[in-house]
């Protein structure tokens, strides 16, 4: 029996969020039939460029979904759309990102469909019984676990960068299916959006998606400029500890940790960050961890791949300067 895997595509207008390409790559390793789900304000679905991109990473089709009568960003609305898609396209697995919103969608969908959920997975495989098994890091990165999903529908929220996006050999644009148009449920209509102010766009990659994140803590003493410069040479985003956001040195949306953004970059650089367990819980899936801290006993050194005991006000600018110098030398040669 063939298996169908659905990928919920995160998109802003026509722009596809990069996690979708990773999720599609992962989905391909689990099934031949991979469909992208595109929930939007209208029924037209993604444009040609987006369909090309989705196809390049393995979506054989894309299902445009419109939920009428409720705000399209609300959890209940998204779940109404997904349930309608599942009615039309029986699938055994849904993959989605790992933001708080994604996790709420996963929870609601699973309750209403008898499914099972694993959040924050870094691997998904199929076992001999055909069950989906998700692996993840738990207890602030000190343990790992593998969990089988036994419900009718497996719903897995996947951490960014846990799969490297790889295009298919012979890409074809994803074919748009007949749009699924459904009326919002009472639960979705019950919530009214009084006001929504989108966050201002930044030139830096978003914290959750960035491959490199430079995080500042109390040790920065409020001066994030050197960290921003380092992030810019590395093409990364800037994050912070809760101490730094509580101090008002940087916006709360920059908070990395169990009550902030969960990040899983290829490179994490912590400057003036002690490595408290609450912080670690939001970055334990980082591949390479670098730390600069003047206290040799700081807990962050227990899990840093590369630790420097030193003053960040010296080390960080010197590193930025050196990286810039090398880049210019390469460009000049």
């Amino acid at each position, binding site marked *: 029996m063939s298996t169908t895997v659905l990928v919920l595509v995160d998109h*802003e207008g026509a722009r596809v969020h990069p996690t979708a390409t990773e999720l599609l790559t992962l989905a391909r390793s689990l099934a031949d039939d991979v469909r992208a789900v595109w929930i939007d304000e209208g029924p037209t679905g993604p444009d040609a460029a987006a369909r090309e991109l989705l196809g390049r990473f393995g979506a054989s089709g894309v299902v445009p979904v419109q939920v009428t009568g409720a705000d399209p*960003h*609300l*959890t209940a609305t998204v779940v109404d759309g997904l349930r309608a898609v599942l009615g039309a396209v029986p699938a055994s697995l849904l993959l989605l990102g790992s*933001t*708080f*919103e994604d*996790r*709420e969608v996963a*929870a*609601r969908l699973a*309750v*209403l469909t*008898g*499914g*099972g959920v694993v*959040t924050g997975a870094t691997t998904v495989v199929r076992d001999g019984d055909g069950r989906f098994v998700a692996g993840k890091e*738990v207890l*602030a*990165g*000190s*343990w*790992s*676990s*593998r969990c089988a*999903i*036994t419900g009718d529908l497996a719903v897995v929220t996947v951490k960014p960068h846990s799969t490297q996006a790889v295009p298919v050999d012979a890409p074809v644009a994803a074919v748009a299916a007949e749009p699924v148009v459904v009326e919002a449920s009472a*639960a979705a209509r019950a*919530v009214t*959006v*009084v*006001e*929504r102010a*989108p966050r201002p766009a930044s030139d830096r990659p978003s914290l*959750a998606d960035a491959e490199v994140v430079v995080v500042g803590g109390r040790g920065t003493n409020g001066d994030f400029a050197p960290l921003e410069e380092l992030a810019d040479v*590395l093409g990364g985003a800037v994050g912070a500890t809760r101490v730094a956001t509580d101090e008002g040195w940087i916006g*709360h949306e920059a908070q990395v940790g*169990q*009550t902030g*953004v969960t990040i899983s970059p290829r490179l994490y650089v912590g400057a003036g960050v002690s490595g408290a*367990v609450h912080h670690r*819980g939001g970055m334990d899936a980082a591949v*390479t961890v*670098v730390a600069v801290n003047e206290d*040799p006993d700081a807990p962050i050194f*227990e*899990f*840093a791949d*590369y*630790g*420097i*005991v*030193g*003053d960040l006000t*010296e*080390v960080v600018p*010197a590193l930025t300067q*050196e*990286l810039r110098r*090398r880049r210019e030398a390469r460009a000049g040669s």
Partner: protein
Amino acid sequence: MRVVVCVKHVPDIQSERRFRADGLLERGGDDDTLNELDEDALEAGLRLVEAHPPAEGDDPHDVVVLTVGPAAAVDALRRGLAMGATTAVHVLDAGVEGSDALATARVLGAAVAALHAESPVDVVVAGMAGLDGLTSLVPAALAAVLDWPQLTLADRIDVDPAARTVEVRRETSTAVETLTAPLPVVVSVTDQAFRARFPAFTGILAARKAPVRVLDLAALGLDPATVGLQGSTTRVLETSERPERPDRVLVTDDGSAALALADYLAQKGFA
């Protein structure tokens, strides 16, 4: 107004936490505490009722702390009572052990429904995550079980008792929103705005003697097959302590550390 605050008793995050051989988290240690994020939820619940003192002749407000967990979880309820909750309800049943987040939400949902049937509940408040599993699934799952509107990750909550509506402010990954919904609702709160009060000594003493209502699955009319390990739709296959990261480097800066780090980053392909 009647507010139910869902609280969880969790292993202290600073302690040595471990999994048992059967894949369940070891619970019930001396260091287990009320999940810190649920203290913020209780704080939010207390502030809700404090903002609207009952009119003359009205019933007094009731702030219920509700937990699902083993016998030791009563400590979380006592902490909640000490902070100012007026009622404590403990769902205690051997059949609950091993429940995953969704099965737990089913139990909480049945308990809220039972309380609601006795005397209407207006708002259910939950914390943004349990510091043990960190899934953040329960509030949305609970709203789905109850079929009540969900307003999650709030950093401001205002109830309009006359209109019987609630308005919250929340920050999502892409926007700052203000949402409203009719009561009853399920809300969850972030750790940003409801820094929990410290219980007064008299509150701690009174909480020790306060009654705790215990309910089992039968009292909630729950089929044991729908909760616990057998009612869960996930099954832990394996847990293991992660090895330390290999080949760790720790250097003390003598003025050259930045250059050495640049080499390291280049070797890793970042520079």
